[in-house]
Structure formats: C-alpha cells, structure tokens
C-alpha cells in the first residue's frame, strides 16, 4: 500500500514550456532543477531550500546532469554546445564551450561512468570521447525520417551498458511507437549497431498509446505502455515478449498520461481524472495489476514531467514543481485493496507462436509427461498411475509418485489407505491388548525399515476433502481396519515420545473425525466390546489433549505475570502470614 503525505511546492516555474527537467545532484538529498533557457537551481529536498544555482546567457536546452567521474556539472547549451563546470563556478559564460557539429538531444548520467551524450539523430557517445572527437564526429542517423526519441534509458548489465529509446513517428495519420534497444561499446560509448534491435509497439488498430515508461528491474528492461483503453502492457525488451499487466483505474486515457517508476513494482501515473475536470496521481501495482492509491490534483497539464527521487514524487505542475512524499508499505492489507481492481474485458488476443515448441515447465517423470500430453487432469493422471502400482506392491514407487500430486482423488486415497493397512497384515494383532498395541504402534512409527508402515504414515499426511472421502472409506475399509486406524491415530496423538508436527497433528485429528463420521452407524449398531474399548480409548486421548490445552490456558497468565516481573501473591502471603515457631518463653 502506498500513502501520500501533503503536497507542497519545491520551487516555482517561470513558465512550463521552458522547464527541462530534474536530475539528481552529487548529494542525494539535493536535486538539480534545470529551468530552461538560462537558470539551473539546486534544491534541498528536505526543506525545499535553494542551496545553489547558476545562470547563463546561453540557452540551456537539456537537463543539466552531475558527472560523477569528474565531479562536475554538464549541460547542453544552444542544442549543440556542451559546457562543464565545477560546483564553485560562478559564471557559466566564461566556462569553456565544446561545440558539436550536430544537435544534442540530452545527457544521461550513468553510474560510475561518464555521462552519455544522446544526439538528436539517435546516436550516442561517452562524454569525454565525444568531446575529444567532436570536430570529426560524424554518424549516420539511426532514426527513420520523422521519428523522434521521446524517452531514453541506460542500463548496465554486468559490464556492458545498454541503451533503450522509445521513439514516435507518424504513419497513416497515427502515432506509431517503437522501442529501440542497443548495446553500447565500452570506452567509446557509441552504439554497437549490429546489436541494434527494434520492437514495434502495436496492438489492434483502434487503440493508441497515451503513455510510456522504460523501467529496469533485476537487470532487465521493461517498457510499460499505457493504451487509451486503460490497458497497461509491458514489454520485456530482451525477450521481446508482451504481456498485459491490467487495467489502470481512476485515470482518464483520453489525454496523455505521465508515468514514473516508484519502487517495488509500483508505478506512478499522472493524468486527467475520469471526469476530465482535474488531475489525479495514482499508484499502480504492476504485480497485482491494481491501483493502490490515488491522490486528486486540481490542474492537469499534458506531458508533465514526473520523477520519483528519494521517496518523493516530483511533478511538473503549471507554474511550480510540486513535491509529494510517499510511504510504500510492502505489507498488503487486503481491505485497502477492496474495490481498487477494475475488471475490463480483455480484447487483446494473444498470438500464440505455434512453431515454437516448449516443454511444460514441470519436473516430472515420463509417465506423467505422457499423460499430460493428453491434457488429462491431475486427478485422473493420479488415478491412472497409482492403481497399477498398487498391484505391483511397490510402496517406494507409490510414495515417489504421490509426491508429484497435490490433488489426489478420494477414491485413490481410500484405496491407498486400505492397501497400506493390508500390507501390515494386522490380522494377528489384537489391538485391545494394550501393551502389544503400544509396542506395535511405536514400531510402526519409529521403525523405518518397515516400508509398509511408512506408506501408512505417508498417507495419513495427505490432505483430503472429508465429505467426498466418506463413501469411499465406508466401501473399502473394514471395521477392524477402522478400529486399528483409530487406535493408531490416538496413540500418535497422545504418546509424548512420538514427534508429531503441528500439521501432522492437524491431519491426524481430521482423520480421526472422518473415521468416526464414516463408521458412526456401525459403531452404534455393534455391541462388540472391542469397539467400545477403542472408542473409550479415543475419548480418553481427546480428553487428555483438551486437558493439556486447559493447562496451557491456566499456565499462560502465570507465565505472563512472571515475565512482567510480578510474583504470584498468594504464595508470598501465606508464607508471611502464618508460621509456627519455636520460641523460648
């Protein structure tokens, strides 16, 4: 869940057109605001104080960035000039100019490497290299005619850098978008043109793009595209696979929407509200595909720049840069998500690539694979495989196979149970003889060499649906089997030496209840002493267990008292108030 704090103004804007962007400063608490034309200001985020700034006579045409490597600031002037200056430089006009023969789009700051120059024709170069070779720098445009770069992003994977553009061009009276993705060569920082790839951003004819965002997570590129039907799609740039994230609620997709990446699978969107009478900032969870918070704003401005720096959203508003601190909680609170999920009809049909064959993703043995191919359900596969194995009497194999299934049909389960009991050959054992029974039970649980018993123990841990199992049990188990099982289970539950986990205990209780339910009538009808004895035994163990619970119930407050440093008073009082002493009188 995301929560916003109060909105406040970082700095006023002279006019919106001239605002070029915000970038991170050397100190992570500060930001550089490039206010177009000729002003660069440095603000501290915590108190919105201006802590520095420069002015220039030349027009600034690109966001000023901080060059980590050279500890200097770099800016683009008059579209074709680069200037570098130190923090203490006062007059930018006296700083040395590096004029380029071609137009510079912008500078991108890279981590631990010099910034990257992006030229308007789509080429790029590392800043020092570009400055050195600026006179001779020539390059063929990688863009088509009429194509323009609207978003750039640079990512380092391992030691290689990758660059990603989102471009836009007009074709057939419609805006077309493409993703350009390319590896960058070391040192030079220019594009390895052999590895350049283009991905078309397309869906069906009648939808168009209203917003885009390049995001990297876990060393992967993703391009999020918001369409005018409120659908959000994402493209994994590397694999070129498209996926639908979901529908974005609360925001109007009639006009452009600005996007920014928050953190932990959350995006921020800024756009018109649904009634088109104001703006809305919304936090969108791309993992769940739901909007998790919205914040209404008064004014909408199209193509507003949106940033997310140091737990704050920075938004270009009409006449100021607004700031909105936020809190993002990873703990999901279900109630807060209620109603945030909008269900839209999925009109997007996924095109399956029939040519590519991919094996199913499970790690299973061949028998199952075979059956999966026929598209059988888990239940029927299980039923088909287990039954023949039972005849072969191979407990190990059964166990192994069962491991693969989650959903075991009730019929199979009851057969398994009967089989497991039969394996033990219990006919000779008299469960009414207490000592013999106890030693047998202990043997069954502890002796690992007894494979048959292992199967039984295993079966007892399988989860099941009780109502469906009852008829099968009635059909397959005999009364003596049931009595044996019930005594065994109650022994497992009560014997302190048998380590039964919480889950196992839960299952055992369920089994016991189930057996009682299934054979209730038989128990009532028979007057066999054995039955009464077993039932009494079960009753005793249940009483024993409930008593233990009561004991804990009584003991907990005492423990709590002790933990809080209070001793139980009654003990002390009695010690104090009365004694018989030997006294010499």
């Amino acid at each position: 869940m995301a929560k916003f704090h109060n909105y406040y103004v970082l700095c006023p804007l002279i006019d919106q057109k001239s605002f070029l962007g915000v970038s991170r400063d050397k100190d992570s608490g500060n930001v550089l605001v490039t206010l177009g034309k000729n002003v660069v200001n440095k603000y501290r985020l915590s108190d919105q104080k201006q802590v520095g700034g420069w002015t220039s006579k030349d027009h600034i045409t690109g966001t000023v960035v901080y060059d980590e490597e050279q500890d200097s600031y770099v800016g683009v002037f008059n579209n074709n000039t680069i200037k570098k200056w130190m923090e203490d430089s006062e007059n930018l006009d006296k700083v040395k100019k590096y004029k380029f023969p071609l137009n510079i789009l912008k500078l991108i700051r890279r981590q631990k490497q010099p910034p990257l120059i992006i030229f308007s024709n789509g080429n790029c170069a590392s800043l020092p290299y570009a400055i050195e070779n600026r006179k001779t720098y020539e390059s063929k445009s990688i863009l088509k005619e009429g194509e323009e770069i609207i978003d750039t992003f640079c990512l380092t994977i391992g030691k290689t850098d990758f660059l990603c553009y989102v471009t836009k061009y007009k074709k057939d009276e419609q805006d077309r978008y493409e993703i350009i993705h390319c590896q960058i060569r070391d040192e030079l920082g220019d594009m390895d043109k052999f590895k350049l790839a283009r991905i078309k951003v397309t869906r069906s004819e009648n939808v168009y793009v209203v917003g885009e965002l390049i995001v990297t997570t876990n060393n992967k590129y993703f391009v999020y595209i918001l369409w005018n039907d409120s659908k959000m799609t994402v493209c994994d740039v590397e694999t070129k696979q498209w996926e639908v994230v979901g529908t974005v609620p609360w925001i109007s997709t009639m006009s452009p929407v600005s996007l920014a990446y928050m953190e932990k699978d959350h995006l921020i969107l800024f756009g018109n509200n649904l009634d088109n009478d104001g703006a809305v900032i919304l936090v969108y969870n791309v993992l769940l595909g739901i909007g998790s918070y919205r914040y209404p704003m008064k004014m909408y401005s199209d193509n507003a720049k949106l940033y997310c720096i140091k737990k704050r959203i920075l938004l270009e508003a009409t006449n100021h840069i607004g700031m909105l601190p936020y809190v993002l909680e990873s703990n999901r609170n279900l109630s807060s998500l209620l109603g945030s999920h909008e269900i839209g009809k999925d009109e997007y049909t996924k095109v399956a690539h029939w040519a590519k064959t991919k094996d199913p993703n499970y790690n299973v043995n061949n028998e199952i694979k075979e059956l999966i191919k026929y598209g059988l359900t888990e239940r029927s596969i299980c039923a088909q495989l287990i039954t023949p194995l039972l005849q072969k009497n191979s407990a190990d194999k059964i166990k192994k196979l069962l491991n693969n299934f989650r959903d075991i049909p009730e019929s199979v389960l009851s057969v398994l149970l009967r089989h497991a009991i039969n394996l033990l050959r219990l006919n000779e054992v008299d469960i009414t003889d207490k000592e013999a029974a106890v030693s047998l039970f202990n043997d069954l649980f502890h002796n690992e060499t007894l494979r048959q018993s292992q199967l039984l123990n295993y079966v007892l841990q399988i989860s099941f649906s009780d109502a469906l199992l009852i008829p099968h049990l009635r059909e397959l188990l005999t009364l003596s089997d049931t009595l044996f099982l019930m005594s065994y289970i109650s022994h497992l539950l009560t014997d302190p030496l048998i380590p039964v986990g919480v889950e196992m205990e839960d299952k055992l209780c369920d089994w016991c209840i189930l057996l009682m339910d299934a054979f209730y009538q038989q128990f009532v009808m028979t007057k066999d002493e054995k039955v009464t004895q077993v039932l009494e035994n079960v009753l005793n163990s249940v009483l024993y267990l409930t008593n233990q619970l009561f004991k804990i119930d009584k003991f907990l407050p005492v423990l709590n008292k002790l933990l809080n440093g209070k001793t139980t008073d009654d003990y002390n009082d009695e010690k104090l108030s009365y004694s018989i002493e030997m006294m010499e009188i």
Partner: protein
Amino acid sequence: MCSKVHRVCYYNPKPELINCVSLNKTTRRIALARANASIEIWDLNYGPYLVKFIPGVEKGSVEALGWVEDRLLSTGLGGALLEWDLNKLCLKSTTLLTGYAAWCLDVNTANTIVAVGTEQGYVNLYSVENNEINYLKLFDKQEGRIMCCKFNKTGDILVTGSVDTIRVWNVQTGQAKSRMSVSRRGKETIVWCLAVLADNIVVSGDSGGRLTFWDGDLGDQIESYVTHKADILSIAVSDDETYMFFSGVDPVIMQFIKVKNHKESRGQWVRHVQRHVHEHDVRSLVIDRERLISVGADGYLTFSKYPPKWVMRIPPMIPSPRTSVSPVKKLLLLRFSTHLEVWKLGSYGTNKNGSVIYDTVNTINTSKQKKGKNTGLEEDSTFDIIDKAKVARKQIRTLKLIEKPLKLVSVQAKGQKQIRCCQLSPSGEFIIYSTDSHIRMLKLDADEEDQGNLSLSKLTISGLPTSCDRIAFTQDSRTMMVHCAGVVHVLQVDPLAGATVVQSINVEKHLKTASVLHLYVSRETASGAIYLVVADTQGAVAVWTKGEKKYEHYVTLPKYKCIPSALIVDWKRDNLIIHYVDQNLIEYELLQRRFAAERDGWRLRSPKAVAEIGGRVAVSMTLHPRRDALLLHDDTSLWVADRQPDEDSEPVAKRTGRDTKPSNIKVVPFKYLADFHWLNDDEAVTVEILPENIVLQLPPVMINK
C-alpha cells in the same frame, strides 16, 4: 525451654483514622474519635491505657469532642450536640443544633458554656452547668460554614474561623467585634484551626499552609508564616503559652516558641524544631504536660517529646477483647469492626519419633528492610532491652506446616453494627457477641474430620438486656458471665436450650462506677473455688466466689491509686495477681484475704526490671503453664518474668548498677502484638498486626516533593 508459638499475622482490621482528640486536664484522660464514629477514652496518668470504648454507629460522625469536667460532649455532621454516658458507654442526650452539620466545638475554661459552629454559619451557645445542656444563645448568622471556634482564657470572647474569614465575637452580647480577611489574592482560603492566646492574640492555620498571628482586638495581622506545603489542620498551645505545635495535611509537626528579648512586654514567636512523626495527615494535636499527642489519618495515637527526641506510637487496634481461643479445638476468634472470623489454626508436622520437623526453607527476615528506608520519619523510641532481644532473635526456627490455618466462618454483626465485645467459649462451641443493640449467641458445630462440614446455629438467650460490654466463660463453657451497666449476669449455657440467666449480681454497689474494666472468671483453684473478679475503670477490684448455688461477694480489695491494667488468678496458689498501670504488681492471697507477704515476687518493681520494661503498660497477663512464671504483654513486646526465690530480700538499692545477677525478665519483641494466648502446655498463639499491613490499608500520602 521452647514453646511452639503459632504466629498469626493475617489479622488486619482496617485502621480507622482519628478525627479529633480532646484532653481532660483534670483527670488526664483523652477522648478520641475515629472515622467510624467510635470513641475511645485513654488514661494517660501512667502509660497510655485504653479505658473505655463506645462503638460508633453506621454513618455516624464525630467532628469534635469536648470535656465538661467529667462529661464528654461531641458533635458532628449529624447536626446535634451529643452527650455520652461514660458509665454505661452509650448516648446520654441529644440536642439538635441550628444550622445543620456541625464542624467544631469548644468549651470555655470555666466549663460553663459550649460553642458549636455549624454549616450554615450559626454559632450555637449552650450552657452546660449543673449536668444539663441548655440553650443559651445563637450568634448572628455569618456567611459560610464555621470550621473552627475557640474561647479565650477568660471566656468572654469567642473566635470563629470559616472560609476566608476570622470573626471575633463578644460572648455576652453575641455581636462580632472584628473581622479579619484571610483570603490572599482572591484565592479561597479555609481557616482550619485557631488558638487564642492570653493577650487576645489569635493564631490561625489555613488551607494555604500559612500560620498567621492576629491582634484580636484590632483585627490586624501581626505576623504570617508559610510553614507547610499544604493545609494546617490543628494548633496546640501549651498551658503557659510559651510554645505551640501545629501540623496538617503536610504532616510535619512544627514548633514555635515564644522568646522574650530585652524584657519587652510582648514576646516574639519564632520557629523552633520540626518533627517528622507522621506520614499521613495530622488531624488533631493536644499537649499533655510535656508530651505532644498527635493523631491523624494513619490511625496511630502518637506521643512525642523533645528534647530529647522521643516518640511512642500506639497502633490502631480494635479494643480488647479482640481475640479469643478455644484450646481444645484450636480455634481462634478474631474480632473486626463489624464482623467476626473463626479460624482453625494450622498444625505442624512430627516425624516418627514424635519430634517436630523444622522447616528447611528457613528465612531470616527480621528488621533488615527497616534500615534501607530513609523517609525521614522518626522511628518509635525503643528500649535497649528490645533492641538486644531483636538481635538475639535473628535465628528463627520455623516448624514445617502440614496444615494451613483455615477460615471456618465469618459472622457479620446484625445490622452491620459495630461490635462491642465478643467471646469464644473455651470448648469452641459458642460464639457470643454484642453490638449496642443486640446480643447474639451462636453455636458452632465443626466436624473434626471434614472441616468443610460445619454449621452455625443461633442460640436463644433469655433474660439479658440488649447490650453488654464484657463476657467471660468458665473453664467448662457451661457458665457465662455477661456484664452490662453495673450488673453481671450469670448464665447457664446449654448447647441445645441456649443460655438462661440464673443470677444477676449488682457489682456497682461493691465498686465505684458502673463501667467495668475487667471481668475475669478463674478456673477451679487448688482449694476448689471459682472466683469471679471484677475491676472497674476507677481502680476498684471486687471478688465473688461460687457458692452452693450462686456467686457471692467474697472480698473487695483495698483501693489503689490507679487502675488495674491486667489481672489473673493463680489457681495453684489461690492468689489474685493484679498489674496496675503504674507497673505495680500485687499479689493478693484470696484464702487469707490479705496481700501476700512477698509483695513483688517477680521483681517487676526492681530498678533493673523497671529500666527494662520502661513506661509500658501490660494489657494482658497469663501464667506460664509449665513453670512459675508470669507472662505480660503490651503491643510491642512480651515479657516473661520468672518468680524469683526469696533469698535476696535485703535491699540492694544502694548498689544499683552493680547488679550482676542475670535478670529474671525475658523480653520478646513483637510489632505489633494484638493478643497472646496459651493453647496447652507448650503451645501458644500470638496474634500480630504488622505495621506494613496497617500502612497498606491507609490512604495515599501527600506527595512531598
């Protein structure tokens, strides 16, 4: 020789705070009233000794007490002036006052007029001459309730204090002479207490913790001191008006003394010492000769003196007889204010040889926590001998309990009234108690084996008045003596038929008053007689003996100057032993009807013993069942005095201090010992009230920071 002592420390009646105290200077008796409206009268002539007790009534209130010669008057929120009959220990007369609830009362020096201040601002004046209470005068109504009033020495001026104001009245005309305003900066100030000095200087203590001296004639303020952090509730001025004490919610007792420099006509009052004797509010102060008596919310009756610093506290206890035992059944009856409890005592374990098993988890927890506490509170002044005994008793041997004490029944007094007296028969069969309007007798049937199975049934009593103040059983529990207003009724007790009066003895004609202090029935003595001993509150002692059918007057003892604090009949010798409040112990040979030749067989009057016992007054006395010794106790210690052989009859007084002979007196300290009973030859019960249990039940202390 060791005895097994059951130490019962769970007897914790609620300590009742003391509202007010009044001193009768001629008889040196004080009357004090507690929050439950009970009134106690203590004799201060020697050690303080409780002489009389009047139980309070529910919702009763005693705000002020006053002595008119030997008559006791009180007033309270009930809005009446009450006179108490101190012989019958009941209400004598009620006079309704004008102005609802009354807050204060003062008697003039001539003992002729009583002034009472009321809620509505009326001062009621009553003439109390000729043993009557007659309406005299009503002063003009004034604004606000009257919290305190005081006559001057000559009795022609009355000063009253109320909220923000002190008024000086002419008693003759009933008009106000002057009015002093006490409020400071518009803040409401209550005048809680007043004192009028000889030169008509009025001293007031108020809710601001301020002590102010006023000129009573002019109404001017002379001097003012902020001495306390909270309200001053009481002022006590010495008779010669050379010093005064005052205290209140801030329980520091401050002393001012009058110093005269340069032979000025008027002396100057200056701050002297301050005493930290109480932790809780001090409600009332009285000066008795050199001693200051202070009482308050802690319920203690506290005596203090300076110099040297000396403090004696008498803890709040239900008046005696507060407990009784049944040695046969090992039952213990505990008396509380409005209910009784019967406990079965615990028992100790013995091993196969029949010897007792000691508790292995032995704890030494004597007086170690006392030292760490540094509250600045003055401890009780102690005697060397007790300190020594405390050290000696470090090693406590506790027996292993195999049965814990068990509460058998709790009996609520009829109508939730306060209990005047109660008794458990020696057989453990009967419980009898009296409130001021009922005498009830109950039969307790306890099954020996099954202690849960017991029944309590009411027995009828015929021929008794509605109330009594002393009860005694004979050893066989078949005869019961009940004293009421000068008459001792002898009742025949039958478990089925109840109790019937068989004889009424008018003891008053052999005594001086109708109020009896001791009623004692001896067991059958060596000579086969059963003695009934009655002592009154004036010190007269008379003895009856059981004749053929009736008890007949046997002898009246010669009069002694003070009252007997404890008495007992030595049944082996047919001797009556009486301990007086002046620590004199006499032995009277009943057969010969004369004092024993040897006057002080226990050497209690020997200089050494006097030094050891100090100014304490024994409240009860028992004989040692195994040897020729006497056990006496007060609330802090138990003394065992062995009878000394008669050889050294020659006076050794000249060589005091050189007495090398070991003392015949052994002192066992307790804090506080409520009662001591023998169960059998080597088993005894002590009922103790621990000071910490008293403190626990008290209201919180004013935060003193």
